[in-house]
């Protein structure tokens, strides 16, 4: 199967981390919470998955260290930021999803998820 998009498909963990960082810099637990919230609880990420993915994404230049910041509780936490490369990869993945939705709509094979109870 030939892939016409610029970057290879992303793993679910990487996609959700990039998606979480698209709305602003975040620290580890903020990323975890955002992923759980955005996926409606379908994707839960443990520390091992999160930091293993962050390590690979840092090495690949998809994200960068945004420095340490102190929150309301005065504890300093490391923040991560999306790079241009990461944003491009996220947009390419979103385009793949949109293309898939377009094909589903064109063939009219989408199940009625609202009434079937698939979506809240």
């Amino acid at each position, binding site marked *: 199967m030939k892939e016409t998009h610029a970057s290879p498909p992303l793993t679910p963990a990487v996609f959700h981390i990039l998606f979480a960082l698209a709305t602003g810099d975040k620290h580890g637990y903020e990323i975890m919470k955002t992923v759980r919230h955005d996926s409606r609880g379908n994707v839960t990420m*443990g*520390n091992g998955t999160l*930091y293993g993915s962050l390590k690979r994404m840092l090495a690949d230049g998809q994200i960068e260290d945004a420095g340490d910041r102190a929150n309301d509780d005065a*504890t300093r*936490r490391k923040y991560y930021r999306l790079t241009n490369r990461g944003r491009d990869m996220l947009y390419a993945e979103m385009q793949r999803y949109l293309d898939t939705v377009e094909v589903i709509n064109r063939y009219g094979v989408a199940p009625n998820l609202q009434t079937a109870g698939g979506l809240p």
Partner: protein
Amino acid sequence: MKHAIRLYSLLVTLYPRGFRETFGAQMRQTFADHYEDVERSEGHVGLRFWLALAVDELQHVGRQHADSLTKGGVLRKAVVGKAVVVALFFLPLYAACLGLMVNLALALPHPHVSGIFVVIAIASVVLVLPGIVSLTVSCLLVNALASIVAKDKSGAPGSS
């Protein structure tokens, strides 16, 4: 809370050193945030939390060790390099040992053998025995050479 962080710190020590140095403190902080959040929202931290944590961490401990071993293909290159040198020693040694075994087998007086299985068994011994001997000798030679080279490198000027 303190005991939980201490227990989690033990889990973090299972990660490779490089990974631990880069992410260890962040992982402990993220764990503390998560633990505090669960305790606040659910009233207590149950077995399900610890089980999910242990499964996730242990999976990734293994993966990070595998990553650090094959970092930059160092391990793969070393294994392939060693295999090539072993093969260079092994092939001539095997040819020599095989020739010796065949000559010995033909020269020595032997009883009349019959049956295909007996012939195959004798042929296997004649073929395999030199193979085992040659491979063992080759590996010993390559290891001895590798240790001499490593000693030379560590004793070279400018090396720390």
